[in-house]
């Protein structure tokens, strides 16, 4: 009798049913899992079918990419060709970037842009010694550098030799424009409104009656009026109150308006963060013997600000897009410059291309900010995040 010891051998797993793996499985699970889901999928596919092919054929296949003037985008009888006319964008790209800034001085803005990259790039290095100090120094120093690159140094009297051709002649702020102006207003607004917002939020929560009343009044006043009204008041009403001939820089007026306006919103966002900090944190800080500024700077604010990063960036993105409102007070930001291009007699009738280009540029910047905020959230993530 032989004892056959048969070790139990598990059979190889059967492959999962064909309908649950691969593309088919993914489709079944995600797109056609249930009746409502199937209906929605088909509807979405139909909408894509309606939108995408015409868009692709307008913007790429039938578009005019080369040519000297607007006739390249027209048929012999003056009718428009079907596709987009991208040569209009090529012809006006300089105008979009720099607005009415003197043509021969545009390199100064290019240098300012290059300097921005060079000066801020080291902040991306993880273990830079004295990184905080360097960051503060750059944030304080760069605006000064950029201001002089934009504005220039030598103020010639009109008509004096050099007033029209000196490379460092002054360019008044009313000539600043295009994407450069949009970025300038947005970055000044962003950089200045955050600290102001922190102060206002702390002020609003303060127990000192004058400080808190002032903060509440300030915040409610600025939040209670539309930005367009603020800009309009600053450009139309203010000159009437000033003596004749006194003229306060229009850009400065707009910058102050935009900054104070977004500071009020920022204050409420930050107050939301401050309210999320448990009382124990304050008490622990006080137990350690920290005074108010140190308690706020070391314990409370770092946590509060971290909670509200998405909201802060949200406000920044809103601010970036709101800068287009300066067009109504006669300044030519990116959108204003595009409208200038649309009114160029050489390129009449191509405004759709101009606005499409604006949409793409605005999307790139806003999406960039949004990605950066997600990066910050991951970097500073302290266990509050769900996923």
């Amino acid at each position, binding site marked *: 009798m032989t004892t056959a010891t048969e070790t139990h051998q598990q059979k190889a797993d059967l492959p999962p049913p064909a309908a649950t793996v691969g593309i088919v499985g993914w489709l079944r699970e995600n797109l056609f899992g249930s009746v409502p889901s199937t209906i929605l999928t088909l509807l979405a596919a139909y909408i894509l079918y309606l939108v995408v092919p015409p868009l692709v054929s307008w913007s790429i296949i039938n578009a005019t990419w080369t040519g000297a003037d607007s006739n390249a985008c027209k048929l012999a*009888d*003056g*009718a*428009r060709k079907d596709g987009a006319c991208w040569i209009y964008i090529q*012809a*006006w790209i*300089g*105008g979009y970037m*720099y*607005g*009415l*800034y*003197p*043509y021969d001085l545009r390199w100064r803005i290019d240098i300012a842009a290059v300097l921005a990259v060079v000066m801020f790039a080291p902040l991306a290095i993880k273990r830079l010694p004295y990184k905080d100090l360097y960051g503060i120094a750059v944030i304080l120093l760069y605006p000064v550098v950029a201001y002089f690159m934009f504005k220039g140094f030598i103020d010639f*009297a*009109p*008509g*004096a030799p050099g007033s*029209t051709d000196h490379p460092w002649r002054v360019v008044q702020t*009313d*000539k600043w*424009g295009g994407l450069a102006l949009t970025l300038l207003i947005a970055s000044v607004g962003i950089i200045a409104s955050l600290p102001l917002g922190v102060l206002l939020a702390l002020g609003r929560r303060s127990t000192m009656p004058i400080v808190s009343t002032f903060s509440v009044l300030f915040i409610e006043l600025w939040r209670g009026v539309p930005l367009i009204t603020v800009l*309009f008041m600053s*450009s*139309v*009403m203010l*000159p*009437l109150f*000033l003596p*004749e*001939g006194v*003229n306060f820089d229009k850009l400065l007026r707009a910058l102050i308006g935009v900054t104070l306006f977004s500071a009020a919103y920022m204050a409420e966002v930050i107050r939301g963060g401050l309210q999320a900090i448990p009382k124990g944190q304050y008490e622990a800080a006080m137990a350690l013997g920290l005074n108010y500024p140190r308690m706020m700077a070391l314990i409370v604010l770092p946590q509060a600000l971290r909670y509200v990063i998405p909201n802060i960036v949200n406000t920044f993105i809103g601010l970036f897009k709101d800068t287009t409102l300066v067009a*109504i*007070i*006669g300044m*030519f930001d990116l959108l*204003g410059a595009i*409208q*200038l*291009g*649309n*009114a*160029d*007699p*050489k390129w*009449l*009738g191509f*405004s759709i291309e101009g606005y499409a280009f604006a949409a793409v540029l605005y999307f790139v910047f806003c999406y960039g900010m949004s990605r950066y905020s997600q990066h910050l959230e991951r970097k500073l993530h302290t266990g509050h995040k769900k996923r």
Partner: protein
Amino acid sequence: MKKLSVIAAGAALIAFAAGDAQAQATLDAIKKRGQVICGVSQSLPGFANPDAQGNWAGFDVDMCRAISAAIFGDAKRVKFVPTTAKERFTALQSGEVDLLARNTTWTMSRDVQLGFDFAGINFYDGQGFMAKKSLGVKSALELKGATVCTQTGTTTEQNLADFFRSNKMEYKVVAMEKNDEVLAAYDSGRCDVFTTDRSGLAADRTKLKVPNDHVILPEVISKEPLGPLSRHGDNNWNDIIRWSFFAMLNAEELGVDSKNVDEMKKSANPEIKRLLGVEGDFGKMLNLDNAWAYNIIKLVGNYGETYEKNVGPNTPIGLSRGVNALWSKGGLQYAPPIR
């Protein structure tokens, strides 16, 4: 008694001197500053629009350049301040700009109530119609029952209502906020007729998908006299604007243009001699150089030249002279003589 009259005479003299200083205040300020500050449209094709290099061009812009040429002998000493329709009057009242050359209709309330002086009419505009060729309409009087596209909240809408009511015609209106939206609505067939000022109509026609399918009807249903304006109270300054414009018109009438102006200086015609400052002290009367008009014509051109260059039939704006022709050619442009 004698003493009193001396005091009175002294006071009168001081008042006169002050009045005289006041009268030239704007010109003095401009000379001191070194440039004319001119309020223009933000961007109106053919009238004031910058090119891709940021240089301003247009019919209104040339008016500003002409004044700079008259004062400084240099057409480039102008600072252009783009103003919106709402801002423009505040900008002039507050002294932010020296003059407005911004497609502004001369109306009684603006002239009298707002305290401005219009220096002349450099462009006779008026509201017109554009219709689809397929309608087969030859005149605006055949538009009974038509759907009309127009801009909201402008005098255009009011004029339209008046025109149709006074001709006892029914119509439907499609009104939108911005001109480009109105035009898009018209192009997509939401209405049969498009109406706006004639200065914009031809340019708007080129923006349509198939411009040849549309015609501009001959009727003009409103008066829109456009011209440069300055503040009340400085007559010398207003005279400079007015006569800079008249000099351009007179130059066209006398056949003087930017190309032949140097030869014309030798002309025996006394009118040309006075215009170009060869004879008489007409520039001095304006507190300017006697070559003021010569400089305008040399550096900017006469009225006809700036018209042809910016808005004439060979430009995309495509406006024939029409009522803006010289009076001697059947138009309305008529300048008083320089003598």
